[in-house]
């Protein structure tokens, strides 16, 4: 790649009138009930707390459904159901346990379209992502772990394994069904029972998953789903009869959970925040790297814990990368998440939009230059943030240090691989990293020294049920997926 062809060599794309594509919204009807109860011991029931919340479509601000808020007594009932179901589930022949998970995977694949639409309506993510990533990966997670159920004796050589017991699982709103799958699949394969709490802005696909659990005749109480906000989550994590707490969410809440679990003997896995470095070396293939950057930060509106939110570009190609990034962003379509052409959907909630806008304001106040190249008007209703990036970001800037969890990229530069490494590791987080270079030795030299649990070489934001995911440092501990993910749901006996 020539490095001196920085300007004018890359022609701007001119689509003329051809750019006005017809809207192509997904039209398959999806039934949504007016009201959802808690899923406890195999049945839906109203909350003893008597409280409810409403979940809305963040793209339209329309109410989708009312759902129950689990109070202490409800959480108690769910944990009791999970405890009661544990012995029979544990004693079930492992092959049979696996078959339930296989069935679940298959049923999810059959109902994939419905789940994709529901996910997009409840959370605001583009249908092409829920259709091509969230739902198929969730199904794959169940299918992958189904096969582990009767093979656990081979997972940890020279050790006998036993289930941990009742697992409290608290998941975020960015990948609602996929996170439910990440949590439930390994827990069940290992012979545990579960109480899952979905996020308050995105409860619908988890509740629909509960319907599928009824369909496949999963024994009552093996999976219980309690909806609600932070208080419900705290009640669940602090419940004395829970053996394990698995949490995906912010580092701040993760630390609170760690403090609450201190001295209790509860097993804890935490998948927390990140400010992942995405490094482009001067010898990288820039066409691919730019696609990687787009995928890294604008996928799912940047609501991704491992988002490549710190772009580190070698100084010699900085101008060219900025120009190419700007051009590429002009073709990003922001809007109706149910439209198959949409690249960037709605921000998940008004509260998250406020956080993102505050960070953008701080970024400008601290002296970085905001660039918002995307074209077209944002819809009038709903929660929207045009994808953007900041030039001239210094390592001390707030937007270079703190997780924004939105479609906002901070661009920094470096001169030498050593400086790239130093900047990459200059964070309390250590979840993921991306590296673009055509030179293998440079790639692995950096990859082996970056403190991150996932390193994408010449790629970004790839996930797989067979591939362990999780962080170094303050991005948490424990892995999800692959053989390593099982470790969090098993006790090893000599």
């Amino acid at each position, binding site marked *: 790649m020539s490095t001196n062809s920085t300007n004018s060599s890359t022609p701007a794309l001119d689509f003329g009138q051809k750019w006005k594509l017809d809207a192509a919204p997904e039209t398959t009807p999806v039934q949504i009930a007016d009201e959802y109860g808690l899923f406890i011991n195999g049945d839906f029931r109203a909350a003893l707390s008597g409280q409810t919340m409403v979940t809305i479509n963040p793209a339209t601000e329309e109410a989708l459904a009312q759902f129950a808020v689990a109070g202490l007594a409800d959480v108690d009932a769910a944990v009791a159901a999970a405890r009661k179901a544990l012995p029979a589930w544990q004693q079930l022949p492992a092959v049979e346990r696996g078959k339930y998970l296989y069935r679940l995977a298959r049923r999810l694949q059959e109902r994939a379209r419905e789940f994709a639409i529901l996910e997009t309506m409840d959370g605001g993510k583009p249908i092409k992502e829920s259709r091509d990533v969230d739902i198929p990966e969730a199904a794959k997670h169940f299918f992958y772990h189904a096969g582990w159920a009767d093979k656990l004796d081979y997972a*940890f050589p020279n050790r006998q394994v036993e289930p941990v017991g009742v697992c409290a699982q608290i998941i975020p709103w960015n990948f609602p069904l996929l996170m439910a799958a990440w949590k439930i699949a390994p827990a069940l394969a290992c012979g545990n029972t579960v109480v899952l709490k979905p996020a308050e802005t995105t409860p619908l696909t988890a509740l629909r998953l509960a319907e599928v659990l009824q369909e496949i005749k999963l024994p009552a109480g093996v999976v219980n789903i309690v909806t609600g906000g932070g208080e419900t989550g705290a009640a669940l994590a602090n419940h004395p009869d829970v053996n394990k707490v698995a949490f995906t969410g912010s*580092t701040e809440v993760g630390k609170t959970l760690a*403090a609450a679990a201190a001295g209790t003997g509860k097993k804890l896995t935490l998948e927390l925040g990140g400010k992942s470095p995405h490094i482009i070396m001067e010898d990288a293939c820039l066409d691919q790297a730019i696609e990687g950057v787009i995928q890294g930060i604008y996928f799912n509106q940047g609501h991704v814990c491992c988002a490549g939110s710190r772009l580190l570009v070698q100084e010699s190609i900085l101008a060219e990368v900025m120009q190419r990034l700007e051009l590429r962003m002009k073709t990003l379509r922001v809007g109706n998440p149910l439209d198959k052409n949409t690249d960037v959907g709605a921000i998940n909630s008004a509260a998250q939009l406020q956080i993102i806008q505050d960070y953008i304001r701080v970024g400008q106040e601290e002296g970085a230059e905001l660039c918002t190249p995307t074209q077209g008007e944002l819809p009038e209703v709903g929660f929207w943030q045009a994808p953007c990036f900041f030039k001239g970001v210094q390592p001390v800037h707030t937007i270079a240090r703190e997780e924004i969890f939105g479609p906002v990229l901070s661009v920094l530069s470096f001169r030498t691989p050593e400086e790239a490494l130093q900047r990459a590791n200059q964070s309390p987080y250590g979840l993921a990293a991306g590296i673009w270079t055509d030179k293998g030795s440079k790639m692995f030299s950096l990859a082996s020294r970056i403190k991150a649990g*996932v390193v994408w070489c010449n*790629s970004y934001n790839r996930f797989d049920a067979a591939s362990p995911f999780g962080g170094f440092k303050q991005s948490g501990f424990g892995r999800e997926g692959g053989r390593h993910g099982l470790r969090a749901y098993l006790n090893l006996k000599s």
Partner: protein
Amino acid sequence: MSSSERLPILKTFKLFINGAFPRTESGRTMIVNAADGAAIAHLCLASRKDLRNAVAAARTAQSGWQKRSAYNKGQVLYRMAEMLEGKSAEFLGAGCEPIEITEAIDRLVAFAGWADKYPQILGCANPVAGPFHNFTIPEATGVVGVIAPDELPLLGLISLIAPVLCAGNSVVALGSSAQPLPTALFAEVCATSDVPAGVVNLLTGQVYALIAHFASPRDVDAIHAGGCNTEDTRTLDMGAAENLKRVTVRDLVADQWYQRRDCHSPYWIESFVEMKTLWHPLAT
């Protein structure tokens, strides 16, 4: 001239920090008595500041140790076993039972052997559904604080240190509070074993005075402890709430420290490594 008049030269025991033997900055000592009540040694009573100095040394030394080849780390651990074997008589004199000493030596040998094998047991290649090489490799967690149990002052200490070192971490260890002399002697083993300065730092002192200071600092990445009561465990667990320290407390007592099936296993290394998963595209 009668030989009985010769005054023996007594050893002054100090801390072991960054490959050197400094006195405690606190200026305080504790007395170790023989069975007949006679003072046989004065040991340093390490302070919070000594701990801080040790953590700083361990941080500086860690990346270099991690970069050493697995073969080299194995040889350094084996060298520790060699030096300990040669010093057996001194540990006998410090009150260790012979079997405790030989088991401690064998434990070092066990982990010397693991150094270039555990990554093959704990890591793996992952069959992802796409054109990628995908593999998971263990990497050192960083600086590990070790709190040794009161009982079995040599074996307990080495059992907690060896798996941590084996994985490329550096160590700041507080030896047995009740029987600190073997810890001070073990410092001499480390000093003569090709362990790079700062990779192993050894403190003598009181666990009650220092435990909270092991849990709280953000520059300690993990804790490996034994002999803890419920309150100690809670104190250490709270370290996770500080900076997500990885806290592992072994609840072994007495003879359980002799169980090789547990104490020689790579699962003791597992707690002090971070799993890194690499994705690399295949040419398509």
